[in-house]
């Protein structure tokens, strides 16, 4: 689930941080720059693991800030295909399930990858909600939010950042704002194997 990635970055340290010790200031800058952000093909950055080297400290003409070349390692959240992860149900809709890990919410299980055979029924607890039910040997096992759900990672994709469309009218922009916010990293999971699904089904 978690990997280390080593990165070299040219960092500009603003002058108001000059009174702090160098390591702290650089770590603070790296945190604000990388934490909780998705880097393509590397995953979601969880934490700065360590700083390996700091070079430079030049001040370029016309600029008040010093520039450092820093090598450091980041702890990245990057689930690999085939990994089994346990998560909580966030919402259930006609397209499938959406699971959440607390720090990462964009895990989708589309209908074809749900445990089969299954059927959906309107959720008695939430209005306009759909609850999915697995049929096995005559018994009905609903997927509800009471316990953790184990899923296997089917695919991890990084959709490209949508370009702004300047010529659209105001109406279209307001419609776009209502739709889901852009997710830079999407994990697709599957529940279609033994041992997957809510833990209560198997224990």
């Amino acid at each position, binding site marked *: 689930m978690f*990997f*280390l990635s080593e*990165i*070299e*970055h040219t960092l500009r340290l603003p002058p108001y941080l000059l009174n702090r010790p160098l390591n702290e200031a650089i770590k603070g800058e790296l945190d604000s720059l990388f934490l*909780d952000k998705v880097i393509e093909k590397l995953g979601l950055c969880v934490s700065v693991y360590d700083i390996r080297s700091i070079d430079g400290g030049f001040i370029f003409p016309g600029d008040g800030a010093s520039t450092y070349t820093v090598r450091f390692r980041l*702890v990245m959240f990057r689930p690999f295909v085939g990994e*089994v992860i346990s998560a909580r149900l966030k919402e259930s809709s006609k397209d499938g399930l959406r699971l959440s890990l607390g720090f990462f919410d964009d895990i989708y299980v589309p209908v074809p990858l749900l445990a089969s055979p299954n059927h959906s029924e309107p959720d008695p607890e939430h209005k306009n909600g759909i609850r999915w039910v697995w049929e096995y040997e005559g018994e009905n096992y609903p997927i509800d939010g009471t316990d953790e759900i*184990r899923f*296997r990672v089917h695919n991890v994709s990084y959709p490209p950042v949508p370009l702004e469309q300047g010529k659209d009218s105001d109406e279209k922009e307001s419609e776009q704002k209502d739709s889901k916010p852009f997710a830079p990293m999407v994990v697709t999971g599957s529940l279609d194997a033994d041992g997957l699904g809510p833990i209560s089904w198997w224990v």
Partner: protein
Amino acid sequence: MLILAISYDLISHILLAFVKSGTLIFVGWIYSFYLKKLIALGFLLEHFKKRVCLLLEHNAGALTNFEVLDLLKSRGAGKDPTRVIASVSASEFKVFDYLEQTPACNQTRDIIHKFVDECKKFDLAKAEILNVVNMRPSSAVEVYTIIEECDTRMEEKIDDFVEMILQVLPAHPSQAEPNEESGEGKEETVQ
């Protein structure tokens, strides 16, 4: 008259040479001034080329959930009830909360080393060992999903494997109650 003419000629030549050299020096000075700027600019451009984040190593190592939890704890995540003083940001706290609910919260480095040693006789891939350490499957059904082609590779050893997991890796606190009795029973037989 002739001397005057010659000297005048000479003087004018000298003056001209002087002026020429003067301008040359002047031009040379201007040229060097701009050259330095160009060199500085070139250096800046070189540096700006590297300004973009450079990826050195895509995968410098896989981390188990326990190692990430240990890292966050070493920065003071667990002991701080107010969540303000420790040098751990809010997003890191979310990861900490998630990891506390997984079986990783009870593990130690020794346990994981011991588990990896015991796994050598089962011939498992590194990713599978990582998965098992993170998930702690407590029954054969759960092991089937994690290990590929379980039937062909592990035919009868699967029960030994599950038993080894239950012995070496500690259970999650919420699972501890039903496992404690069976755990104590096994300790007696081992001793």
